[in-house]
């Protein structure tokens, strides 16, 4: 299982999503943006607690360059995302995850596109599950708009989004 952790709130949300998963979803490989300081601490704390119940629990942490700063322009974002793909592609190739879980930070775009590419090249078929953040009630994030077309399962947490994006899955509030 490969988990993409974004800054702050995204990490908190995704750890909540992981909280009820069984040990079949192991080992967990976390991918962070290189400039993210706080997510690592949250992840380690989560995994530490998990290890108290599941002693065989394993996880790893990798970093890739941040694909986009908040409110960075569209054109430069394409360039920085392509740069991040140079890092995420070998990483995804190395880990060959069965499942990628992400919830919206820019970091997830290069990772998911890498996995999608590896799938096209028949190197590894990964299931991509995208969960849009609970903040998104009426509109999708930019990552969401892109990955709606590349993910296997696209989960939204509010009914308005399910109406607008019929291929999505609505499970109610899950964080």
């Amino acid at each position, binding site marked *: 299982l490969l988990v993409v952790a974004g800054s*702050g*709130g995204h990490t*908190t*949300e995704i750890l*909540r*999503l*992981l*909280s*009820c*998963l*069984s040990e*079949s*979803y192991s080992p967990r490989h976390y991918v962070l943006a290189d400039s993210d300081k706080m997510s690592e601490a949250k992840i380690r704390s989560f995994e530490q607690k998990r290890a108290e119940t599941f002693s065989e629990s394993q996880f790893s942490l990798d970093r890739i360059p941040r694909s986009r700063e908040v*409110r960075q322009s569209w054109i430069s974002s394409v360039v920085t995302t392509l740069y991040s793909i140079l890092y995420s592609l070998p990483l995804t190739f190395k880990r060959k995850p069965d*499942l990628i879980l992400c919830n919206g930070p820019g970091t997830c775009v290069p990772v998911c596109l890498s996995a999608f590419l590896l799938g096209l090249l028949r190197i590894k078929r990964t*299931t991509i*599950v995208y*969960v849009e*953040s*609970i*903040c*998104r*009630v*009426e*509109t999708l*994030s930019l990552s969401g708009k892109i990955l709606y077309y590349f993910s296997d*399962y696209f*989960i939204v947490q*509010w009914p308005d989004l399910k109406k607008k994006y019929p291929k999505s*899955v609505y*499970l*109610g*509030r*899950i*964080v």
Partner: protein
Amino acid sequence: FRFKDSLAEDLQSADLVISHAGAGSCLETLEKGKPLIVVINDKLMDNHQLELAKQLHRDGYVLYCNCSTLVETLQSMDLSALKPFPPGQPEKFASFLDKVFGLQ
């Protein structure tokens, strides 16, 4: 306090919380069952925080206002009208994934 690791203690001892519309702040407060007034930052362009605050308000979980109307909101608020906030259900997500991977 610049960056505390956790506001859990402060939240626990508060009777009323006034916060910006960040999802983490709102949800943490609501989960502790504290009355919450959300203040929207008008100057933040592309205000996606607004969507969540508006929805939480529509559902009756929080009061909301902007910086200029805060005082008036504090004066006229009726906190008993706020509804208790049901927690999210990550079990549903786990169940969903288990079905996808045939792990049930």
